[in-house]
């Protein structure tokens, strides 16, 4: 019989190998899924993972990689701090939307202006909006002991309703002939978040994502706060003896992750999305949860995981247009990845033993 034996300490090898094995297993299972949908699995996998990087249109699609990876990485970095401390913010999607609305509101309030200072002001407003939305579950948790998972998730639905109100009402383009959606930031240069180097997809949000990776790395490796976050997650009791205030941890982690998601939102709405519309959010806040786990809650890992997940988005769109693969297949594929990741992760903490009779 097969039994699990707990390892004295997590295996470093398996900790690093888990994401790779999980991706490989997902490709296999995904291939089966694509075959069931009547597509050639090898061709589908190649279209998703290979063509965007090395195929015919790679010159364009490679740029899209950073556009998609930027927000994913930025949000996932924020989430990873909370996840490490055992604080489950799963409402990043809502914080992302609120960041976008706050940021866009500031920009649109002073329309039109040429003053380039408006852009930093919008960014700050966006971070504030996300932070504010993250503070609601944080305050309710510290003050009333409310479950942050449920509250942050409920607030996603509330944010979506506010977004539709914004797109149809208070932020609607007055010159838009009654169509829903705000003014387009691409024709509002002072407030726009343009591509910095043509063809690379690099915009300020991507820059911010890289900065976040570096900051998170330093925080977790070199700073007492990072140590406290890790301690709070791994040994809550020890953390209390160490003097870590759990309330402060909650406010801090939800605040940081909210602000990161808000930043991602405002960069997205002023850049790639271009305007506040009813459905400008495409679920980055939820996919970022997968990115954070796939990156093993490690900043560098998240950077790689974000790029990989961006690849599945782009490749998925390619497969959708070229092979007629339903867009939902990619969503299922991404969910599957998280499953396999969690399944393979058993190897990090446990050894698999073949149980033999007579062994003590």
């Amino acid at each position, binding site marked *: 019989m097969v039994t*699990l034996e*707990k390892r004295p300490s997590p295996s470093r090898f398996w900790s690093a190998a888990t994401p790779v094995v999980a991706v490989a297993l997902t490709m296999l299972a995904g291939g089966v899924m694509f075959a069931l*949908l009547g597509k050639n699995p090898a061709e589908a996998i190649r279209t998703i993972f290979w063509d965007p990087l090395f195929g015919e249109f790679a010159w364009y699609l490679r740029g899209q990689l950073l556009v998609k990876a930027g927000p994913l990485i930025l949000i996932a970095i924020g989430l990873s701090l909370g996840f490490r401390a055992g604080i*489950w913010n*799963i409402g990043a999607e809502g914080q992302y939307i609120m960041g976008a609305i706050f940021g866009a509101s500031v920009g649109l309030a002073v329309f039109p202006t040429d003053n380039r200072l408006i852009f930093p002001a919008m960014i700050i407003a966006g971070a504030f909006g996300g932070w504010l939305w993250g503070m609601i579950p944080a305050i*309710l948790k510290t*003050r*009333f*002991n*409310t*479950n942050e*998972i*449920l*509250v942050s*998730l*409920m*607030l996603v*639905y*509330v944010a979506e*309703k*506010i977004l*539709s*109100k914004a797109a149809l*009402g208070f932020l609607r383009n007055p010159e838009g002939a009654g169509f829903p959606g705000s003014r387009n930031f691409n024709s509002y240069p002072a407030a726009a978040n343009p591509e910095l180097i043509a063809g690379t997809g690099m915009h300020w949000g991507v820059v911010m994502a890289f900065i976040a990776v570096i900051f998170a790395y330093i925080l977790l490796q070199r700073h007492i706060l990072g140590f406290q976050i890790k301690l709070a997650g791994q040994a809550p009791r020890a953390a209390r003896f160490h003097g870590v205030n759990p309330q402060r941890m909650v406010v801090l982690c939800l605040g940081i992750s909210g602000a990161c998601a808000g930043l991602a939102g405002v960069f997205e709405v002023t850049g790639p999305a271009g305007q506040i519309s009813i459905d400008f959010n495409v679920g980055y806040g*939820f996919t970022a*949860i*997968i990115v954070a*786990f796939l990156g093993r809650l490690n900043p560098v890992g998240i950077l790689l995981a974000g790029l990989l997940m961006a690849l599945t988005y782009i490749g998925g769109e390619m497969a959708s247009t070229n092979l007629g693969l*339903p867009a*939902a*297949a*990619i*969503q*299922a*594929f*991404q*969910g*599957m990845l*998280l*499953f396999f990741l*969690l*399944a393979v*992760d*058993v190897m990090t*903490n*446990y050894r698999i033993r073949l149980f033999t009779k007579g062994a003590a």
Partner: protein
Amino acid sequence: MMEFCGINPAVLVASLMVASVPILLAAIGELVVEKSGVLNLGVEGMMIMGAICGFITAVSTGSPLLGFLGGAAGGAVLSLMFAFLTQVLLANQVATGLALTLFGLGLSSLMGQGYNGIKPPLTEALNFGPLSDIPVLGRILFSHDWVVYASVAIIAAVWAVLKYTRTGLILRAVGENHDAAHALGYKVGLVRLLAILFGGALAGMGGAYLSLVRVPQWTDGITAGAGWIALAIVVFASWKPWRVLIGGYLFGGISVLQLNLQACGSRIPVEYLSMSPYLITILVLVIMSSGRGRAALNAPASLGQSFHASR
């Protein structure tokens, strides 16, 4: 009786009983799961899988009853994946539950391709004969389909099993202290597996009620957070079955009322009305989690912890 903005109170009560069926079923299932010490956050995913599986079964067989069974099977199969990951591979329950929801949303939308805009076979109201002609009460109590009564009966059954039977005692023992239950010789993993399957089947059935009766058609993301509200209702109910019924009817009432207010052209903007169920969920969580009546005190002691029998 007083009529407010064209809303007849008897009709309102009758329709809130229908509206709350999906969350009632999902919540009572999750209550059993949590009583066994497992936190399955994948209710939303299991519900939506139940919604699509039930819909496909009902459309292809023409039988709503088989549709509900199909929905229950869909939810149970997904919950089996959760059980395997958390009970065999000892994965983190919070993360696995999230994975279940993300995967379920994707897979359901994939399976639902080509089912948009189709009407499912009608689930008819039971025939109570002259009883349903009683003024007010007839409308409220004797005008529904069988699932409405089944949802109440299941809550009663769960209550009775948990309170009066040996099975219920074992389930609670496993949830309160899995090490002690293990030492007594109970199969912690098996008990939890069965509880998870039960929760999955009920969540799936609740989802099927959405796509077969409540809406009734298939649209992507049909559950719209109902699974999460069901999770909140378990907290609201402080893990007590009858309070699930109160919680479910409360939320059903709010969603029906806000829809009615939207329909009769209330001055409150539609967006604010439609966010009210979520805001009220938060409010209720705050009230139940704080102060002397702290719901958390009632939570099963082993909730959310993995069990690994080292001896």
